[in-house]
C-alpha cells in the first residue's frame, strides 16, 4: 500500500469505528489510541478481510448507517465477530479474541489473543465516558467529586464527561 492508501484506509477505519461505537472520529482520535488500534486490527485480520471490513466506509456517516451496520456487519459470519471485537476494543481497551470457528474459516493470527492493548488503552476505554465515570485508578475527578450529582446522559444537556 502507498502512504496515500494508508491514509485512506486509516480514515475508513475511523469512519467504521465511529459508526460502530457511537463516538465521532474526533472523539476517537481524542483517546490517543486510534493508531494503536488500527495497527492491532491490521495485525489480526488478513488483508482481504480488512479490506472487506472497511469497504462500506464511504457509505457511512450519512443517513442509513443503521441499515448498513445491521445488514452488512452484525449478522455477517465474517464481519460480525470482527465488529463486535472492535467495539469492545474501543470501549474497554481490551481485545476480545475472535471465535474459534471464525479462525478456522478465515485464518488465525498470533496477535488474536486476549490482551489490554496498553495502559493508555485501559484508561481511554470509552466505557468510562459512557457510564459517566472515570477509569478506575486514573483520571481522578478531584476531592469530593463523588458527592456531586451523577453526570447527565450524553445529549441530555450538561455534558460532564471526562
Amino acid at each position: 500500500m502507498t502512504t496515500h492508501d494508508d491514509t485512506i484506509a486509516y480514515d475508513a477505519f475511523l469512519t467504521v469505528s465511529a459508526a460502530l461505537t457511537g463516538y465521532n472520529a474526533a472523539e476517537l482520535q481524542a483517546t490517543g489510541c486510534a493508531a494503536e488500534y488500527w495497527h492491532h486490527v491490521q495485525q489480526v485480520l488478513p488483508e482481504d478481510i480488512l479490506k472487506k471490513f472497511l469497504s462500506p466506509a464511504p457509505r457511512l456517516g450519512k443517513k442509513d448507517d443503521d441499515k448498513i451496520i445491521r445488514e452488512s456487519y452484525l449478522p455477517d459470519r465474517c464481519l460480525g465477530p470482527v465488529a463486535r471485537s472492535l467495539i469492545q476494543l474501543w470501549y474497554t481497551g481490551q481485545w476480545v479474541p475472535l471465535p474459534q470457528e471464525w479462525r478456522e474459516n478465515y485464518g488465525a493470527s498470533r496477535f488474536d489473543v486476549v490482551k489490554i492493548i496498553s495502559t493508555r488503552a485501559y484508561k481511554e476505554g470509552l466505557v468510562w465516558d459512557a457510564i459517566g465515570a472515570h477509569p478506575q485508578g486514573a483520571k481522578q475527578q478531584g476531592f469530593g467529586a463523588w458527592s456531586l450529582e451523577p453526570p447527565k446522559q450524553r445529549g441530555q444537556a450538561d455534558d460532564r464527561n471526562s
Partner: protein
Amino acid sequence: MTSNDTLEKTRGKLCGLLQKALILELSTIPPYATACYSILEQGQYDRSEPTIVNAEPIEVIRQVMVEEMLHMVLVANVLNSIGGHPKLNDPDQLPTYPTKLLDGRGPEVHLRRFTPQQVKSFRLIETAPKDTGPAKKGDYHTIGGFYTYIKQELENACDTFGNDAIFIGDEKRQISNDDYFGAGGEVIEVVGTPKQRRNSAMRAITEIMEEGEGADLGHRAGDKDIIPGPEGREDVAHYFKFNEILHSRYYHPDDAVDEPPTGGDLIVDWSAVSPMQDDPCEGNYARAPEVAAISAEFNTAWTGLLDGLETAFNTDKSALRDLVPTMYIMKSLAQKLMRIPLPDGSGETAGPTWTYLGKA
C-alpha cells in the same frame, strides 16, 4: 494626607494593585497547565516496557500550578481584607494569549507545549528582582518586584492611615484552610485585630514571594520545607524547579543560587510531548466542527471555573469545593484536544484556547 478622600483614594489604588496581582496569578495558570497537560503521561508513549519518563516534570509543573492557585486565594484574602472585591470574570481583564504580564512590563507568555523554550519562559516568570530598591518605588519588571511594590504600598498606607482604617473587610469573606486545600502551603486568613490583620496580610504576600522566586532565602536554593526521605531533600522555589528541569538534575539544598544544580538525575524526555500548535485559537477549528465542539466544552468548563471563583471570593466560599472536579474535567478535555491532529495536515494537534465565554 488625612482626609477621607485620600484614604479612599489610597484604598482604591491598593485594591487596583491587588486586583492586578490576582489577574497576574490567574494569567500564569493557562500556560503552566497547557504545558503540563501536553506531556504524555505515563503509559501514553510507545514503549515496550512501561517505564516512566517525565513523571517528575509533570509533578513539578503541577506543584507550581497548585501553588499559583494558592497565591490567588491569598491575594483574594488580602484584597477582601481591605474592603476590595476580587473580580475574576471580567472579560476585559482576562488574558488572551500571547500576553505580556504586568501591563506589558513583564515577560511575554504563550500557550505552548512542554518545550525547553517554554520552561525558560516559566523560569523568567519566576525570576527574582535583582535589586528591590527601584521596585519599592514602583519600577518593577518581575512578579517579585511587583509584590515588593505592593507590600511597600500597603505598609505605607497602614502607617499613614492606621491599621484599623485599612483593614475594614468582612472577615466572613476570608478563605481558610478548611475551605481550600491545595497541598501547596498554608492558607493565611487575614483576621483578628487590625494589627493581627496587618501582620497576616504581610505574611500572605511574603509567602507568595517566597514560593515564587525564593528571593528572601539567603544564598541557598532550598526553602527549608523538608522532603522526608533518604537524602533529606528540601523543597526549592519555582525558579529553581524549572532550572532542575532544564538541567535534568535536582538541586542539592546547599547549592548556591547562581550555580547550576548538582543533585541527582531528573529524567526529562522532551519528545514525549503532544505536538500541540502554539497559542491555539478557535479560528483553526472552523473547518473541524467535531474539534470545535470539544474546544467549546473546554471553554465552558473554564468559564465555570472563573465564575465559581468569583462566587467563592465574593459570596459563597463553599463554591470552591466544586472547582476541583471542574479542573480535572478541563485537564481531560485539554488532553483530548491535544491528541486530535489539526485538519491542516501540519501534523500539529489542537489545544485548549482558554476563552472565557461570558454570561449567556
